[in-house]
């Protein structure tokens, strides 16, 4: 099952490069992956600790590297997110004038890399699959991007490559710091080694991992690649990268850094709290100042990473549940927003706020969907983001709480709550200038999103509502993962 999920996109990408009909194959492949993921979701046993659907092939006996896949509740959620967004992104791809097959192949390779990274239970392939997505991103932005695409493509690639190699050093150091007998690349064996690394070493390794993953996640102050890249990328690439690939770093923190390096995580909590406030407050204010929709969405996706960091930093089950759900929720909502933004750009030729206005009259469906995604992004009740953010805030507020004093976590949570107001300001303002008021010159001639493009949007919005009303269907499946990551909490 997992082999199918990971290798179908990659194999179909190669087939498309070899000449298979691009759009039809890509839609079929992403649909098949989505179906398979839903089947895996349905058949998943939530009470079972450890990994399910495990397949393993020995790759290097000298190194103990296996091509091994398996899922627990956390990776299940990430796979669900990836396959949903991939399906929508592939469906949403507009007609490509040049190199259509290469475009779809790049998209599928990105998706395959993300799926492989989330499904891997071997450290080597966990890392390697993520980098598989790097070059397709470079090509997608460089060839089919808009605006200052070359600078953006260079910037994202150099940033992510640097981050990846810092991460590689961190992972190798982690591997080498374990006692000789416990050394392994296998997550299942690694989990049992928690706390075996000397505390001083944990500090070094955790910092490396935090910086490495942080660059990939666009943690403040390593975030400057993200808005530019998302503004320049074609809409499907932005959906996949902002929605899915950026979550790889967060997933890695939850999967590796927190459980294996508890002492390091504790040591650097203060730093992480400051940086995540940078994401929420500083980047939030920068977002308000944006004058273009694509840049605003790019910055807002950077900003929202701060909440997820807060859930991870909390280091308890409520926070981790919230972080995992928020990854899913944010991925879905940002994908809808980028998709609609791409359509607006295609129909009006501009994303500058001052050139747009009154679009709700000519594009009522786009207005409705953008409005729903706006509500979701702000965190209104009923949407996935609400249930996730509530858990994050409760989880974080609970850490070290006593009735007399506010400690670092309580102060951070209070400040982070202001982020909700900030995001309401910029999202609602964007909605008003684009969709309300009198129609501008560029808006007047636009046509609405056709019925053929609506199914993936219904799918994404439906998923957001479903998670918003029934978070337990996902949280219940994650209980097994946390039992090993946060024993005794």
């Amino acid at each position, binding site marked *: 099952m997992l082999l199918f999920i990971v290798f179908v996109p990659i194999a179909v990408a190669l087939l498309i490069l070899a000449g298979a009909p691009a759009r039809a194959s890509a839609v079929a492949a992403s649909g098949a992956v989505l179906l398979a993921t839903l089947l895996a979701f349905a058949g998943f046993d939530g009470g079972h600790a450890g990994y399910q659907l495990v397949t393993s092939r020995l*790759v*290097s*006996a*000298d*190194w103990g590297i296996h*091509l091994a896949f398996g899922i627990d509740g956390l990776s299940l959620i990430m796979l669900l997110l990836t396959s949903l967004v991939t399906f929508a992104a592939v469906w949403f791809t507009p007609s490509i004038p040049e*190199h259509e097959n290469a475009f779809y192949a790049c998209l599928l390779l990105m998706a395959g890399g993300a799926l492989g990274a989330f499904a891997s239970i071997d450290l080597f392939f966990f*890392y*390697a*699959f993520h*980098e*598989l997505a*790097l*070059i397709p991103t*470079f*090509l997608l932005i*460089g*060839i089919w991007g808009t605006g200052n695409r*070359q600078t953006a493509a*260079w910037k994202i*690639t*150099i940033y992510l*490559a*640097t981050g990846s*190699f*810092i991460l*590689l*050093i961190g992972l*190798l*150091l982690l*591997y*080498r710091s374990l006692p000789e007998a416990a050394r392994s690349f296998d997550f299942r064996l690694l989990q049992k080694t928690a706390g075996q690394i000397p505390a001083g070493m944990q500090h070094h390794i955790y910092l490396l991992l935090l910086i490495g993953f942080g660059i990939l996640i666009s943690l403040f102050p390593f975030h400057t690649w993200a808005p530019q890249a998302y503004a320049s990328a074609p809409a499907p690439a932005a959906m996949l990268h902002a929605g899915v690939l950026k979550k790889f770093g967060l997933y890695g923190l939850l999967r590796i850094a927190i459980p294996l390096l508890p002492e390091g995580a504790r040591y650097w909590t203060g730093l992480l709290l400051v940086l995540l406030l940078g994401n929420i407050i500083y980047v939030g204010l920068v977002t308000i100042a944006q004058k273009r929709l694509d840049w605003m969405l790019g910055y807002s996706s950077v900003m929202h990473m701060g909440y997820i960091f807060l859930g991870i930093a909390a280091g308890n089950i409520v926070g981790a549940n919230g972080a995992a759900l928020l990854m899913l929720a944010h991925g879905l909502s940002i994908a809808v927003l980028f998709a609609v933004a791409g359509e607006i750009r295609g129909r009006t030729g501009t994303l500058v706020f001052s050139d747009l206005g009154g679009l709700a009259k000519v594009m009522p469906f786009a207005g409705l969907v953008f409005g729903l995604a706006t509500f979701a992004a702000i965190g209104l009740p009923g949407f996935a983001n609400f249930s996730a953010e509530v858990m994050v805030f409760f989880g974080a507020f609970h850490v070290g709480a006593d009735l007399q004093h506010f400690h670092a976590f309580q102060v951070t949570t209070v400040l982070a709550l202001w982020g909700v107001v900030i995001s309401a300001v910029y999202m609602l303002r964007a909605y008003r200038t684009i969709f309300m008021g009198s129609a501008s010159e560029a808006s007047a001639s636009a046509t609405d999103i056709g019925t053929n493009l609506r199914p993936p949007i219904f799918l994404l919005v439906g998923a957001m509502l479903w998670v918003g009303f029934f978070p337990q269907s996902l949280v219940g499946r994650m209980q097994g993962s946390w039992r090993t990551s946060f024993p005794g909490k």
Partner: protein
Amino acid sequence: MQAAVLEISALVLGIFLLLCEAFAGALDKRRLAYGGIFGLGLILLASFFVTAGPLQPDAVGFWSFYAADPLALFFKRFALATTMLVLIMMLESAPRIQSGLGEFFALPIFTCAGLMWMASAIDFVMIFVSLELVTMSFYVLVAYTRRNPVTLEAGVKYLILSALSTGFLVYGITWVFGVTGETSLARVAAAFSQPNLERAPALFGAVLILVGLGFKIAAVPFQIWVADVYQGAPTAVTAYLSVGSKAAGFVVLLRVLSAFFILPQVQRLLVAVAIATLIYGNLAALPQTNLKRLLGYSSIAHAGYLLVGVVSFSGAAVGFYLVSYLLMTLLSFTVLIVVANSAGGEEISDFDGLSKRSPFLALAMMISMLSLAGVPFTAGFFGKFMVFDAAIQQHQTALVVVAVVTVACGFYYYLKVIRAMYWESPARAAPIAFSQLSRVTMTGLMIAIITLGVYPQPILRALSDASHPVTAQR
């Protein structure tokens, strides 16, 4: 079967081809190359029936300066495979050779014999002689298209600087001999660990020898010749220089250091050299617009990563890195020859829009560039992975930091080539013609790069016997 049979067969093959060239007048010279490839292939096959044994410290006569250990055998195969691929590249570039095509195909076989001997050399005299055999044939090969002034410049530069480095090497050997009274590496090592050793002259000799070897592997500060020689030499020869000559240099380095690392200063010196090489190679490659020069500087950078493996005592990492380096470098040079044949130049701008003119060549070049940059699922990544791991094991923090920063630099200049091929539009639309043999070779190299990136076990297994050349003799 004794291992020395392999070198002797290679020599016989070379002489045979020369005689054919001289006496069979009306022969199509290309047949010599095909014969050479076939003969080397046979020797490669035969190498799997050779019995390898561990080093014999008390051997006498021939066996006191010739080792047939697994490391030597591994690098003999390495040299054979490189030479076969280089001959295929020479066939592709044959139209540009004005005269003496027969010798052009025969000379690499002598070089190959030299490289194979070097892999087995465990005595300074043997090291020197085999190194000279390699260098002499390169003198001729580098300057082969001598009517081209750039090539002539390259030939002269290579001749002078190489002769200079040989001088350093010999002078160093005499100092070491003067201190220890020995030329055999094992006995030199034993003498170096004596408490009553005269440290200063021994160290002086060791440093001089390292200077000589530094020229061969193009380590900073002995890299000055690289850019001009790489750019001026016929491209196939450049590829041979950057792979064969470098690999041989590293084998000798691994062997020599087993004796020299007894002196603690040598390791510190090599760490400094590695850092300088990494920084210089990567930074100098950044602004290049000529692809051959870029590859020249990138080869300096890769020498830096290899040196990181050397100072971390990891023969396996160095071996794997060299194998991946062989695959990706030869692939990129093959594409370069084919494109240069059609475009007439070796600038990166000659690759503009290659994806439209020949998707196959663009894909091959992309894979080799990605592997050189170190993207996972390519052999190049696994090489870097092993080198970094070795450095971390030895707690070489400074090396690791510099290596990570320079890897990021590498992404920029390697992706520059990919950008030219995929983003830019071509100056001409004509498709590019190349031979079927080259197509098969390039396909094979691409498959090998990706296979080793996903499934490195075959090479690791071959290296695991040979992985401790540094410690074995201690």
